[in-house]
């Protein structure tokens, strides 16, 4: 049976009926049309579906939508503003940290979370901080350069 939850996504409050077995990733993608969040494995291994839930990164394929009742969720769609891209998005563009782009939304959310919590990470801290996100195109090199360029 569906249950109504109230969840704030990208600063908007949604009251929405969810199935008890529905994941947050599926809620975002299929019910709300927020398809920027990607799915690469559905088992929490690849990180493509990374979003920020109450200030921490999660694999949204491993979170049930019903668990997010009363929570705050930030997805890739909420990052850019009317003024333009978020500086981390800008850095990914500038440094050539994108190829196929499928991992990029999740990667950028992890990078944002890392930099929100540690404004001046070392290279090793960057590598560890986003090691839950897999990329098969870039060898990670330019992603690290992009994040490194955003240190304070």
């Amino acid at each position, binding site marked *: 049976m569906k249950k109504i939850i109230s969840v704030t996504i990208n600063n908007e409050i949604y009251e929405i009926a969810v199935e008890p077995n529905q994941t947050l990733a599926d809620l975002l993608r299929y019910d709300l049309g927020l398809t920027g969040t990607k799915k690469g494995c559905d088992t929490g291994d690849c990180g493509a579906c990374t979003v920020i839930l109450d200030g921490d990164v999660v694999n949204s394929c491993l979170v049930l939508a019903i668990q997010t009742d009363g929570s705050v969720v930030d997805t890739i769609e909420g990052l850019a503003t009317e003024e333009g*891209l978020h500086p981390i*998005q800008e850095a*990914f*563009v500038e440094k050539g940290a*994108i190829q*196929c782009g499928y991992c990029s939304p999740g990667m950028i959310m992890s990078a944002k979370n890392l930099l929100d919590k540690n404004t001046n990470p070392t290279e090793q801290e960057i*590598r560890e901080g986003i090691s839950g996100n897999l990329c*098969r*195109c870039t*060898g990670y090199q330019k992603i690290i350069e992009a994040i490194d360029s955003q240190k304070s």
Partner: protein
Amino acid sequence: MAVGKSVKRIDAVAKVTGRARYTEDFFEPDMLTAKYVRSTIAHGRVTAVNTDKARQIEGVEAVFTYEDVPQTTFATAGHPMALSEVHKDVEDRLLLTRDVRFMGDEIAIVVARNELAASEAAGLVEVEYETYDPLIDPEDILAQDARPIHEGRSNIVGEHNYTFGGDVDQAFDQADHVVEGRFATAMVQHCQLENHIAHAYMDDLDKIVIVSSTQIPHIARRIVGEALGMPLSRIRVIKPFLGGGFGNKQDVVLEPMVAFLTLKLNGRAVQINMTREECMLCTRNRHPFYIDVKTGVMNDGTLVARDMDAISITGAYASHGHAIAAAGGSKQSSLYPKAATRFHARTLYANIPVAGAMRAYGTPQVIYALECATEDAARKIGMDPVEFRLKNVARQGDINLLSNKEILSCGLVECLERGRDFIDWNRKKKDYEQFKTGPIRKGLGVACLSYASGTYPVCVEIAGSRIALNQDGTVHVLVGATEIGQGSDTVVAQMVAQTLSFPYEDVLVVQAQDTDVTPFDTGAYASRQAYVVSNAVFKAANQLRDRILAHAGIMTDEDPKHLDIVNARIVDNRTSEAVMDMKTLAIDSFYHKERGGQLTAEISYKTTTNAPVFGCTFVDVTVDIPLCKITVNQIINVHDSGVIINPVQAAGQVHGGAFMGLGAALSEEFLIDPESGYVYNNNLLDYKFPTFTDVPPLNHDFVETFEPTSGYGNKALGEPPVVSPPPAIRNAVLDATGICINTLPMSPHTLFSAFKSHGFLDGKGGQHV
């Protein structure tokens, strides 16, 4: 000048904002979901299927088995149609099969209103089998009494034999030394982040529309027609943004089935969205190879003879089959063109998952064995491995004796010199002398590569480009070249901007591929796109430039030869003064009542050359013997890929390839049960492709040559970087330990066995070193 500049990717903003739409981001009303019923054995024949329970699940719309599909076999390889029998692909697939050839083979399919119902119902389809022993080991597959995996066909899919450079046996007889080695490579997988996915529906004209994550939209269209016995013109394939392919999507995997299902279900949209586990097990992978190499060498360091005998395992179905071994072997002739060389390869069916195209198409396996053998030969005569290669590798002006074509651009010698300097070879060689004993050892390694810029003369190389001037003075470009993340749309825009002398921002490349709209091109594979499309784009852009200038001439009453385009303005080339801007010209061409028209140019061009590319990897490693662990301290790939169109994007290709090579060298392999054919690790947790914390900083350099057969001097780059890291690392481990590890990956498991057999470890946790 747009070529040579690191302009921003055309699609970068769409991708960082999440706005780029991939196949799964397109929804059709009432779209159904289909799930395969897969075999639970590796080899056998289905004796009974019962779908009754599955049909009773709520939401199930249909169940089809092998009895319901067309009984015409078709080939799935993403090759252009071959007009000659020799190069024809093997037609050994049905949409669903009664004969089971690997664990995961497709016996039936369930269509339901949602994924959950489809999965549940697929699990309730009851299948009974007559089981046969799985054939996995080459010796068993080749045994006289081995059961044919495909009835009526040999278990040898293809065999290939060639020599070049003179009498090979005589060359071995005259060699001062003959060095032999046996090598094996593992089955690895592409692991592109976006799994295989496609959906199909019928439009209002009863045409089948297939939206698919494919590298080969135009080829997929033809193969769907062949599989379903339908005219190609009734099929339309659309490729949206694509989340990585690496060759795995150079094969038709889902397209014929989704087309079949929508036909059966009155045109309703049906989607197949593979799980990661399915995608790893049931799409394609890299052929495992077993290779014997013999090398003849003179005391002065001249490489005189080479003999390579390879077995390639294609698994349950041919897919790209023997083309892989043939293509891999052919790269030797452009790397070491002077040695008398013999290559013999056989490709075998086996009851394991299906191999297909994967980044560099057989070359990583062959060059791995070749570059390990080259190292062993250099060591045999006590020559520095870099000097040995400098003495023997290809140079500009050499003749590739396999193709009988002159090598028109080659910067390999400089690649080796630059790599040697970067890694500080000479100093470290001395410093590391003190690390050749004890538990922690250090070494340096090098390996070279050669690759091609397309598939000609084995396949046709055709590319199309259409450019149209817009009313606002910008241009739209349609190409058949397929953007899959490698950045081809961006470099096409750079090429057009260069030739038209337009700002890069004014060149708009249409992103999605649509076979009803985009010109014919065979797709993204063989690192062919920038090379092959360059000629079509160069010609089309020049044609449009001439038409723009002709119209400017009409408008100004000037001879067009006195006019030029500079930065999207018409300029009088005698005075350098601007005559008009492009928008003024465009508006006139569109709306003047008596003159002009929409100014367009369209070219379909066949490239009949194939430029070899070159490169090398240098590595510095530490080997921890008790931990059986290799640490790559430093790595650089240096490439000659002709003119580099976009340095930042090109660097990304090199990093990504080197990273994939590191994975293949150190950790990646499918673990297959030798008795049952079961794959233990078809998921991203247990299949170890490197994470952020597993790779060292990746370095790259380019030796830019100018390739005269290419529109902009450029050559292939996408695949080559994956080739040379594994042999370079193997050679560095040999340098560090004195042990030849001739099996990939060089995982702790492999190292443990090697160290134990050499007495470095006692096998009980103690150590001898």
